[in-house]
């Protein structure tokens, strides 16, 4: 629970920090669209290169972005494997006969046990995982003796490999872009930017200011609520609620014992908060001045220009290549 990062903002001084949040939000969206227009691995690799250039120019540590990727590593691997297995277009690159028999299954089980035993070396988790998968492959390919139950063909096509790289690189670029946004923009500025960008929605009756206020209050209370959830969990654990074990029936009761206090406290808090806001003269929908005033500068213009150029570039590439 404690590892959830909410305000990913990390103070810094690169040019990305000096940009208006609106510029950043729009640029990121536009660039994402541009990335989706690209068709080949080469194009994407160039885009990836550009993304890394932005990081370098913005003095953002690549390692930090990498660390941010950790939680979605599984997703990346899954995407990769999925593409390799299920895309059956283009030239056939690999055609291996895989054997599943008594000996090979035993070996695989043994291999799994060894892998799990080594799993406590958390540092090498990734390497071990890759070794494990590789090992399974080798076992199925080469261990062909003993009673054989069945065989199957492991087929990898050109397009499969290409697509798996393609999808993963695209995902990487998109994640990098959005991380850059949240890493270099204070939550307050972000909501302010969203608010300003949503102004036009007033036409259809949505007040962008109220919306922004809701977002910023949510941002402000997320850490408090997580902290509270943790305390409630400890308080119920004190009464023997064991959230890890127990029968399903007990478990439901225990989850209720967590949810009810959370809701009750949330209601109480929202009442208090409404009182506090009202007593400080807040009236929904009424005109307010703002302490954070956004101003577009030359840097924003340049960034906007660069973004538009990149988009134009990818449109051209899409049409002519």
């Amino acid at each position, binding site marked *: 629970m*404690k590892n*959830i990062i909410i305000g990913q903002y990390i103070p810094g001084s690169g040019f990305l920090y000096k940009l208006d949040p609106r510029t950043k939000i729009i640029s990121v969206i536009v660039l994402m669209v541009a990335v989706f227009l690209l068709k080949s691995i080469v194009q994407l690799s160039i885009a990836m290169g550009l993304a890394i250039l932005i990081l370098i120019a913005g003095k953002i540590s690549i390692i930090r972005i990498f660390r941010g990727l950790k939680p979605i590593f599984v997703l990346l691997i899954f995407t990769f494997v999925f593409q390799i297995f299920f895309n059956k277009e283009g030239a056939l690159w690999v055609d291996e006969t895989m054997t599943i028999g008594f000996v090979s299954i035993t070996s695989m089980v043994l291999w799994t046990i060894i892998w799990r035993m080594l799993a406590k070396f958390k540092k090498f988790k990734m390497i071990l995982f890759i070794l494990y998968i590789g090992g399974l492959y080798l076992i199925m390919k080469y261990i062909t003796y003993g009673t054989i139950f069945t065989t199957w063909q492991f087929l990898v096509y050109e397009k499969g490999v290409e697509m798996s790289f393609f999808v993963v690189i695209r995902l990487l670029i998109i994640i990098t872009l959005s991380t850059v946004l949240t890493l270099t923009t204070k939550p307050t500025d972000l909501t302010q930017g969203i608010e300003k960008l949503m102004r036009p929605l007033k036409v259809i009756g949505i007040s962008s200011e109220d919306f922004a206020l809701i977002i910023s209050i949510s941002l402000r209370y997320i850490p408090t609520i997580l902290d509270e959830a943790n305390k409630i969990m*400890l308080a119920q654990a004190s*009464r*023997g*609620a064991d959230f890890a074990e127990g029968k399903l029936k007990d478990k439901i009761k225990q989850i209720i014992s967590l949810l009810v206090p959370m809701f009750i406290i949330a209601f109480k808090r929202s009442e208090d908060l409404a009182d506090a806001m009202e007593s400080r003269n807040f009236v929904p929908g009424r005109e307010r001045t703002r302490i954070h005033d956004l101003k577009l500068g030359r840097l924003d213009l340049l960034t906007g220009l660069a973004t538009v150029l990149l988009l134009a570039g990818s449109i051209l590439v899409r049409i002519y290549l």
Partner: protein
Amino acid sequence: MGIQFKQVNFSYTGMQKGYYEAIKDISLSIESKNEFITLVGQTGSGKSTLAQHMNALVFPTSGTLEIFGKKVTSKRDRHIKYNDIRQKVGLVFQFPEYQLFEETVEKDIMFGPLNFHKTEEEAKVLAKKALQMVGLNDNYLNRNPFNLSGGEKKRVSIAGILALDPEVLVLDEPTSGLDPKGKRQLMDLFKSIQEETGKSIIVITHDMDLVYEYAKRVLVLDKGNLVFDGSPEVLFRMNDLSKFHLDYPQTIRVLKGINERFNLSIDIYQKTVHDATAAIKRGLNS
């Protein structure tokens, strides 16, 4: 038996702050019977963190903790049922709102016993008994805990822990937010529970008057360090308590003022108004 801390450290790994040493090198022993301890220190000194160690809700980052014969270290040991520790050492959190969730007081108090595999009937009996112990009559059993006053909610939340029949009862700032009458009634309640059942009781509080009057033993935390472990008589005889960010009890302050103003030598270490008055009379007569 009881609870033994041996050089226990604990650090929170927080979201932004990185990691934070909340308690440092704590060595301490708490008997399983007849203790009446108050745990004091300014906000953030680590009181709640220390309390949560006592029933294995959090595990030391380093050092060893022995709770009723079971070793608790930074590593979880699969052979230990940590839940059993929580039955031996009951911890009541500061806000009853953190734990009340059932539609009747009775069901809410039964939640604990049922978690420890008591039957429905046994749990009912325990709930009734626990409610009596906190000074509420049977009429409360069927009431909705959310419609009770702050003081009553607090009592019900304490009953919810007492129903587990723990040997040691730890209470995190039970008197905060109560008016002076409410505070005193609650402390009297803890005292009578302690005397009648022989359970050890540990109360976290900021109120030095209560510490002086009720505690047999005081633990003082300052910035995560255990800086004092002894009787209140010894603590309040120390010269410079502000170094621990603590005050002196009102009786001592008043009597000290009198001594200074009238050049007397009254024994200023009196716990109650009555004792203070008696001491003044003795002081004036001699």
